[in-house]
């Protein structure tokens, strides 16, 4: 057997591929489901926090800023382990996928809050005053004047952050969530072949490469008017 043949046999073994394709596909499904839930919940929570912050209530803002800081500073894996291993002993039993969803959504919310807040801050003061002066009131000025501009500014950095955090669904393999990576490592130890690992790499590329390319395009489109 030549070196090339052995390489292909190890990393691209067709029999192993055929056998474990259903497992990997099931893993893709789990990854996509959790990712979608994280994106929706994380962005919604982040936007809500940024809106709340714009009301300028001092005590509330203190807590929002602390929350955003802490979840931007902590490695998600640490929080995942604390929730997964610590909570059962105080009587809160959370499943692996639930823990993964909560931690990643909370992390995304922290980053999204900062991004939307930066968007709100960049809206000129005169626009707020003009909105309120026309009788819209603060809440409607927020919704109709500030929000559309903040969202537009937020999209490129938000897309990058969403990508980085949805990729973290792979951390689920550390707590037994049967997403792509953990299906692949299980298959690898059963088959004694590196092929399932290659399959997981391919699966992630199929999912994320188009998103990376779209993010690059979005960024290049807005680069000229960058702050």
């Amino acid at each position, binding site marked *: 057997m030549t070196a090339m043949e052995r*390489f292909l046999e*190890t*990393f691209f073994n067709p029999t192993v591929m055929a056998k474990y394709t259903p497992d990997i596909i099931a893993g893709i499904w789990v990854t996509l489901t959790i990712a979608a839930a994280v994106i929706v919940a994380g962005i919604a929570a982040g936007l809500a926090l940024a809106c709340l912050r714009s009301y300028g209530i001092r005590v509330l803002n203190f807590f929002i800023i602390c929350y955003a*800081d*802490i979840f*931007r*500073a*902590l*490695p*998600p*894996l*640490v*929080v995942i*382990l*604390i929730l997964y*291993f*610590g909570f059962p*002993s*105080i*009587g809160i039993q959370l499943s692996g996928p639930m823990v993964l969803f909560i931690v990643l959504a909370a992390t995304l919310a922290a980053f999204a809050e*900062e991004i939307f807040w*930066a968007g709100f*801050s*960049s809206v000129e003061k005169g626009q707020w005053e003009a909105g309120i002066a026309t009788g819209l009131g603060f809440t409607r000025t927020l919704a109709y004047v500030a929000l559309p501009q903040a969202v537009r500014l937020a999209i490129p950095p938000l897309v990058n952050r969403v*990508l*980085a955090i949805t*990729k*973290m*669904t*792979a*951390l689920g*393999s*550390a707590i037994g969530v049967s997403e*792509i*990576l953990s299906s692949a*490592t299980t298959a*690898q130890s059963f088959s004694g*072949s*590196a092929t399932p*690992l*290659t399959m*997981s*790499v391919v699966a*992630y*590329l199929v999912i*994320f*490469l188009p*998103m*990376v*390319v779209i993010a*690059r395009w979005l960024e290049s489109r807005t*680069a000229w008017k960058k*702050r």
Partner: protein
Amino acid sequence: MDIFIDQFFNIDIMRKSLPLLFKGLWMTLQLCSAVILLGLIGGLFVALGNMSERRWLRWISIGYTDLFRALPPLVLLIFIYAGLPFAGINISPFAAVVIAFLLNNSSYYAEVYRAGLISVAKGQWEAAESTGLSPAQTLIHVVLPQAVRNVLPDLLSNTVEVVKLTSLASVISLSELLYNAGMARSVTYNASPLVLAALFYLVLLWPLVRLVSHFQRRLAA
């Protein structure tokens, strides 16, 4: 409430696990310095390739950044650590982490550098070269300092991400901060060591996160 404090903020267990966690922290710091340094250097080269006038070089470095930004770092790490031995290449956990995160970080750093290099006006290159500086001298003494200053917040926030990333090394049993905390947890059946590790990360990273916010606000103003 008592049971909550006993499970998450048990001072006694925290104190006992402290030496182990400090040992882990030392490893984490070593990992960080290796990975950050290599990432900063590697990223610069990728960024320069990205802006090269040679088309093939441009394509290779864009392909490189997109490829390694699309792969979750943990997948890359597992592939290198568990996959390469199948090809007859055995590497230590430390080396696996450094290689995997270098590939990942250098792509992210490259994107930041690229934004920085673009932000420096073309006239600066031309002016510096017309005074007789070589391209390398122009880059190091004229362009790079300005480029780095322009993207300092992004470089910093990327570095925060790198430090957080090193916690993934615990998955392949490299005894860094999180791994040691997990060990202490499984021996004591108590989550306090993990909470203590979280506090360590906060002490390390909160000031940097604040600094990033501060820079961003100054840039926006």
